[in-house]
């Protein structure tokens, strides 16, 4: 029975991570930037689960679980910040949010 090499999973994780980095750098919409960060977190989660498989230990799953919890907390606070920014400046373009004080 032929299986999939572990390195394929890790390369898929690398591809997703690099796409997340590209989205974070290229896009100007603050919500899309946030989604690129989530994409990078997902890519890292895939490597954690893959390493967990390779070492036949459950620890990687727990790291993934904690990353998910932190991502949820980050999404709640980050989206609240985005709402406040939009209320104050009336824009979602990060190029227009270039000063600390209005």
């Amino acid at each position, binding site marked *: *029975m*032929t*299986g*999939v*090499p572990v*390195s*394929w*999973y890790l*390369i*898929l994780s*690398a*591809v*997703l991570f*690099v*796409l*997340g*980095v*590209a989205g974070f*750098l*290229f*896009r100007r*919409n603050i*919500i*899309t930037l*946030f*989604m690129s960060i*989530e*994409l990078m977190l*997902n890519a890292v*989660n*895939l490597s954690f*689960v*893959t390493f*967990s*498989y390779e070492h*036949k230990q*459950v620890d990687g*799953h*727990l790291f*993934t*679980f*904690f990353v*998910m*919890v*932190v*991502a*949820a*907390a980050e*999404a*709640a*606070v980050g*989206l*609240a*910040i*985005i*709402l*406040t920014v939009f*209320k104050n400046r009336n824009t979602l*373009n990060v*190029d227009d949010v270039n000063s600390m004080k209005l």
Partner: protein
Amino acid sequence: MDVILFLAFAAIAVVCAVNVVVQTHPISSALSLVGVMGALAMLYLSLGAEFIAMAQVIVYAGAIMVLFIFVIMLLNAGAEVKRGKSLAAQLLGVPVFFGLLSLLSFAVLRLFPHAATVHLGGFTGGSARDVGHALFTRYLLPFEVTSLLILIAIIGAVVLAMKEMD
């Protein structure tokens, strides 16, 4: 069989991830991101991570993405307007992208040349029972600290929303 499953879901994940980056409307990006998360949940299942796959679907594709879509609808976010791009970004963007990708792939292939192969049922220690046991014994302190973090996040979100109302 394993190879076909992996290739199918890896292709879905990569296509959806590219779509997240190239779509100009945030709703399209958000729906593509749900596709990435669903495909990743299937890959987690193939790696024997049953609990994580379910948590991925419920927490990521369910809770977090619904929050994103609510905010997009609330702010009535439209398509992104194109601005003048810098010359350096146009010239260096794609080469740097592929450079980083090949560097990461090179490191992976160099570090794991004869690594094990993944087949269905090769690792059965990822059920809710095993994860829960490890979570409440060895990882009890991180678990409690995480609950504190969530409490702080709730208070922070409420404070930010209250400031908005004044």
